[in-house]
């Protein structure tokens, strides 16, 4: 099977996301996240060139700016301030999590072949597969990590998955919606960061698995 640039970028973003499952070091996670998002930004740019839509270039640029530069830097700053290096532990050991991620990739392939959406001259099924895999990887990250930063990264990956799916299955949404989504993600991450500070301050730790007291 000969893969075109579109498929290669999509799959590489999925693979980079899976690699994130393999390490507990938060800095490494953030770097992988930046790379993975860069792949998605490039995918957007490729799409813009393919369908001659100028506004997608802008979307690609903003994704690169926000998700590749600003958000990882902000999170790195948060990590430095609350003084954690790596996740204190994971519900699923890293290698197993990675294998599960790969399994999920296979599962998403099975799911994506059920979709018969082919638009223009691009077979979007590979894109759908990658998007679903990224989505599942995000869910896995959120489920397996114990500390709150892991959850944030998981959420970001999940969000990327949704975006990738939208991008590969449609002609790209109107600029205003894309911008709204980006802004929303930015705000959510900012709030998450602040909440993590609060949790650290109140509980002296940010281990989500220990926050189980239910209050009515």
């Amino acid at each position, binding site marked *: 099977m000969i893969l075109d640039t579109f498929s290669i970028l999509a799959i590489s973003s999925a693979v980079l996301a899976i690699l994130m499952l393999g390490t507990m070091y938060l800095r490494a996670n953030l770097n992988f996240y930046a790379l993975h998002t860069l792949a998605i930004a490039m995918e957007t740019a490729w799409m813009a060139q393919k369908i001659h839509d100028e506004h997608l270039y802008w979307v690609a640029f903003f994704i690169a700016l926000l998700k590749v530069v600003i958000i990882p830097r902000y999170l790195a700053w948060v990590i430095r301030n609350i003084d954690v290096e790596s996740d204190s532990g994971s*519900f699923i050991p890293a290698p197993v999590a990675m294998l599960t991620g790969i399994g999920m990739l296979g599962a998403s392939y099975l*799911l994506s072949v*059920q979709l018969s959406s082919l638009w223009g001259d691009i077979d979007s099924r590979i894109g759908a597969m990658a998007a679903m895999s990224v989505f599942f990887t995000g*869910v896995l990250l*959120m*489920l397996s990590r114990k500390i709150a930063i892991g*959850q944030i990264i998981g959420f970001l990956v999940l969000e990327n998955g949704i975006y990738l799916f939208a991008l590969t299955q449609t002609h790209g949404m109107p600029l205003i919606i894309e911008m709204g989504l980006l802004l929303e993600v930015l705000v959510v991450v900012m709030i998450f960061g602040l909440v993590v500070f609060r949790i650290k301050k109140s509980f002296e730790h940010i281990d*989500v*698995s220990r*926050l*189980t*007291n*239910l209050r009515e």
Partner: protein
Amino acid sequence: MSFNPEMVPPCTLAIGYGLGVWVAAALVVFLTAERAKHTFFSFLLFMGSFFIGIGAFFSYQQKAISFNLLPCCYFAIAPLTIRIDTLACFFLTIVALVVCALAIFSPAYLKAYKDRLHPGIYWHCIFMFMLALTLTLLSTNAICFLIFWETMSLAAMALIASDHIRQKARHAALIYMGITTISTVLIFASFLWYYRHFHSWYFADWHAAGSITFPALLLFFGLAVKAGVWPFHIWMSYAQAEAPSPVTAFMSTVMKVVGLYTFIRLLILDNNDGLVLGYIAITLGTVSIIWGSLFALLERDLKRLLSYSSVENIGIILIALGVCLVARHDKQIDLAYLALVAALFHTINHSLCKAGLFVGAGCIEAVTHTRDLAFLGGLARRMPWTAACFLANSLAITALPPFNGFASKWMVYQSLFKLTMSDAQVIDRISGLSIVGILSLVGTLSLACYTKAIGICFLGRPRSEMINQANELSHSAVVVQIFFVVICLAMGLTVPYVASLLWPACCEVLPKVEQVHNLFPVPLQTVTCIAVAITCFAVWFLFYLAKRPDTGLKKYVTWDCGYGNLPARAEETGTSFSESIARIFAPILRYRMITEIQGKDRRHFPEIIKFESITSPLLEGLIYRPSMRVILILSRAIAKLQTGSIHLYLLYVFMTLLVLIGIGIRL
């Protein structure tokens, strides 16, 4: 169609004014909160219901109009459309009549309990309740109906809990909450089903497109739960006893009316088979009347007694509706009309008498601070007006002439007789005849029950200290009670006219006929003469008894062994009054009596005599408590899902997502 004042006739506009007054009042209460004045807000309640009553009365028999009340208000998928037609007007008039009277009564009662009830919350809930109730009557589509119905139930729940310091009131509110949720779920399910079948949310479209029975059954049970039909009557004795008396009066009258309205509007129509529903209605109604009257007879709590009596009356109405459904199925339109008119008539009568009785009970409660019959007695001397009105209302509700209760029950009997005499199936005819028998038995039982209530409450000697200081609660309370009595009497004396007023309302749901003959045939002249003669004699006899000269001389029977002037403790109690009947029905009532006599020579010189009678409600013990236990165990098992772990919650979300994707692909 949007709201355009010029298009709407003035009498309909009056209904709008009434609603407007209530909306404004609800907002004003919100602002004044703690400092809310009872008199002012009951005046607003009165004004609102007065406008609505006038509007509804004069819109009666007019052509139905429907319009969009607030074009901007759109409940998700249905606009807030209102339809004012004959049937709705009929029910609105009853509601307005009762609410007017209760509005006058409320302040006196509330002042007696001013340290226990928060006036702001109370009045806010009352206005919400009345608004939602009125709009439920007027709504044309299922969504509006459900929203207002639920608002009404929640407001009623808050009102039951208005004296929430007491644990019993909270418990009652909780029970009511549970029951009303079940009712709403059933009604909602049935509405969804109807929607799927008729592809419309509008009630007007829900007929003639084929008959489906299951949603009708769901709706029927939903309404039965809310109306307190056996076996769902359990909540009534709790909620109605613990709520403040005006609220109880509201609930047992106007809220019942809404339930019956829904029944008549949606189930008498030809959208269901009629036969199944008719049989179920007749069966449940019959059990309800027996059950209600028996438990009312045994009850010690005055308000609970009245609420069990409501169960009985709902049963009677249900029997009439059941006969109407069966007759409609058999194409006997005359009989269907007769039964429906009987049901409507009994609905009004029950609302009016029961409201009057609850006002009376409220007066007694407010004055003596007890509802327990064992501590009441001799109130007739202290509260003569209340006693007289309570007696008159009891006569009305136990269906004695010349009050209205007699007329409506007579019509129920007539419809049952006609069912027996008709050429319907043998089973219908046999059951019609046997229900006549049961109904007359129940009539006697309820007579005994009210004899007990009046005898123990008002006659004899006071059983507690409180009664010696008791006085009439207020002038307004007396006026309200007299108002109810006068209306009951007036309706009882003008039955043919009232019956002729009722049948246009029936035309809304039954196939049109030119005229119904013999709806209430006036008895023959000789019979009338005899009845008048007997009545005159009875009145004369009463006056004779009252006017017997008091010589100041007291005569005792020779052999009463010095017991002539018995103390209150030696009097007959409510329990002893009903004991003989309770013994007969012991298996149903689970009635047990334990007598224990202690002392050396037990027979002649007992030292201590202990007596205990126990009744444990059959349904609660056998069905409700075990099922509650099962539900509790199940809920504990479900609560284990709620661990507090964020990871598990995320997993739940993810699993749900996977399931949804799976379903999506399958579809």
